[in-house]
C-alpha cells in the first residue's frame, strides 16, 4: 500500500484538497524522520560496535570507563540541588497558597526565564565564579564542583518551569476540594498535587538528567577555555571528562584525523543506549508511581 493510499480515507472524494495534501505531507514527514533515525542508528551501530574500548584508563584518549564515571560524578553533584531547588520553586509558582507573593513573582519571572538560552545562564554563573579570584582558585582545585554549579544554574529555570507545568496540570477542583475538607496548603500539596503529578515529576527529573548529560559538554569546554582547567581525564578526582566531552575530544579537539571516527561512533552508541535505558526506566517508574483513583 502506497503512502497516498494510507493517507486517504475511503470518502476522500468529499474532502477538500488541502486536507488531503496536509495528510500526505504528515505521512511523508513521519516516514522521512523514522528512516533518518533508523539509518543513524544502523550507521552508528555498525561503525561503533566493534570499536568500543571498555578498558578503564585515565589517559585522555583511552577507554570510556573514565568518561562514564565522570559523567555520573557530575550528575551526582548537580542533580540533587537542581531537583530540590527547582521542585520547591516550581511548587511556589504553581501553588499560590504555598508561594504567596514570592510564588507570584516566580510565576511572572518564569514567563520569560525559560525562553533564555540555558547556555547563557550557565555562562552567567561561570562569569560570577571566574570574576571572583578566590572562587576561580577553587574552580582550579575542584572542577567537578564548578561544573556542577554551572549545570545547576543552567538547568534551574527550565526545570522550575517544567515542575510548575506538571503541578498546574492537576485539576484545580481537587485543590479546592482538599481545602474545603480543611487541609492546610502543605497537606493539600503533598496529599493531592504531588501524587497526581508524580508521573510528570519523574519525567521532569529524567529530562533534567538528559539535558545535563548533553550540556556537560558545553559547560566543560567553556570552563576549560575560560579557566584553563583541563577537562581531560588525567585523573578522575581532578578533571571530569563526561561522555559528551569525550566525544567532543574525539571529533574536534585532539583528533582531527579520520581514524578517530569509529571510536567516536562507539561512544555515541553508548550515549544513545544510556539515554534509551534512562527513558525506559523513567516510563516504568512513571507507570508504577501512577496513583490509584484515576478512574472515571
Amino acid at each position: 500500500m502506497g503512502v497516498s493510499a494510507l493517507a486517504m480515507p475511503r470518502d476522500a472524494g468529499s474532502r477538500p484538497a488541502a486536507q488531503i495534501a496536509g495528510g500526505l505531507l504528515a505521512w511523508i514527514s513521519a516516514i522521512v524522520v523514522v528512516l533518518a533515525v533508523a539509518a543513524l542508528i544502523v550507521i552508528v551501530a555498525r561503525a561503533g560496535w566493534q570499536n568500543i574500548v571498555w578498558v578503564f584508563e585515565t589517559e585522555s584518549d583511552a577507554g570510556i570507563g573514565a568518561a562514564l564515571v565522570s559523567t555520573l560524578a557530575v550528575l551526582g553533584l548537580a542533580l540533587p540541588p537542581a531537583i530540590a531547588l527547582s521542585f520547591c520553586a516550581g511548587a511556589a509558582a504553581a501553588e499560590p497558597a504555598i508561594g504567596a507573593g514570592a510564588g507570584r513573582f516566580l510565576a511572572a519571572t518564569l514567563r520569560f526565564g525559560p525562553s533564555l538560552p540555558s547556555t547563557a545562564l550557565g555562562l552567567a554563573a561561570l562569569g560570577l565564579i571566574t570574576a571572583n579570584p578566590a572562587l576561580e582558585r577553587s574552580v582550579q582545585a575542584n572542577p567537578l564542583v564548578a561544573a556542577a554549579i554551572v549545570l545547576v544554574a543552567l538547568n534551574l529555570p527550565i526545570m522550575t518551569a517544567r515542575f510548575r507545568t506538571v503541578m498546574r496540570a492537576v485539576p484545580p477542583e481537587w485543590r479546592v476540594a482538599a481545602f474545603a475538607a480543611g487541609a492546610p496548603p502543605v497537606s493539600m500539596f503533598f496529599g493531592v498535587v504531588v501524587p497526581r503529578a508524580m508521573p510528570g515529576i519523574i519525567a521532569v527529573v529524567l529530562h533534567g538528567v538528559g539535558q545535563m548529560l548533553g550540556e556537560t559538554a558545553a559547560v566543560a569546554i567553556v570552563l576549560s577555555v575560560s579557566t584553563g582547567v583541563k577537562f581531560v581525564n588525567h585523573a578522575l578526582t581532578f578533571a571530569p571528562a563526561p561522555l559528551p566531552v569525550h566525544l567532543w575530544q574525539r571529533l574536534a579537539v585532539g583528533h582531527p584525523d579520520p581514524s578517530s571516527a569509529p571510536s567516536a561512533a562507539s561512544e555515541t552508541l553508548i550515549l544513545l543506549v544510556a539515554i534509551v535505558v534512562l527513558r525506559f526506566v523513567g516510563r516504568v517508574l512513571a507507570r508504577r508511581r501512577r496513583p490509584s483513583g484515576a478512574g472515571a
Partner: protein
Amino acid sequence: MTADRAASAETKLEVADLHVWYAKRHAVRGVSFEAPERKTIALIGATGSGRSSILRALNRLHDLDATARVEGSIKIDGAEVLGSSADPAVLRRRVALIFGRPATLPLSAYDNVVFGLRAKGVRDRSALDAACELSLRRVLLWETMSSVLNQPALSLPLDWQQRLCIARALAVDPEILLFDDPASRLDPVAAQVLDDILLRLRRDYTILVATNDLHQAARLSDVTIHLVDGEIVETGETLAVFNRPTDARTEDFLAGRAW
C-alpha cells in the same frame, strides 16, 4: 458532632453586612442574617443571586481566589472568623462545604473519607477506621461500601461520590454544614436519598442549603432566605415564605415567573 451538644436555639452563625466582590463585580451586597443552632436555612434565588458566594465566604474559600474580596462580619459562636486571626484550615473543618458537583479527591474511598482527619494530624489507624465507619453510616453508605473502601473513589457512581464527600465533611466533626445545590447532579431517586440524609443530619447540625430545588428547600429548611442580585429581599419561616411571600419578587420566583 457529639450527641451531648447543647440543644438550645442559640445563634450559631451571625453574618453582618457581608459583601463579596469578584474583581469589579459586586456579587453579594450587604447581606445580614443569623442561623440558630441546629436549624436549617435555605438560600434560594436565581442563578447569579449570590447564594454560592455567601457559602464560599462562610467557608473562606474566597481566600484562594486572588480576584475575590470579602468585607463584613461572619461570627461563629460569637467569634469573628474573617481576617487574619482565624486559621482558614481550622475554620473549614468547623464549617464544611459540600459542592453541587461531587468534589471527590483522586484517592481511594477510604482515603477520601479520612482526608480531613489526616490533614488535622490524626494518624491512629483505629481512630481513622472508626471515623470512616461512623461517617459512612451517617450517609447510608457503610453497608454497600465497607467491602470496597480501597476502590478508587472516582470510579464510584456519582451519587455515592456525593455521599462520600458528605462523609468526608462529617468525619472531622464539623459544627456547620454548607450545601451548595447538593442534588444538582443527581437523578431524582438519588436526590431523594440525599434529602433523607439531610433530614437526619439537620437534627445535629446547623445547616445552610443553597438550592435551586424549591421542593427541597420547602421540605428541609426551617428558615428561607430569598436573594436577588446579591441582596436579601425576603427572609422568614419557610412555611410563611412559601405560602405568604411578602415581596412581589419572591412571589414571582416561587411561581416561576420572570420579572
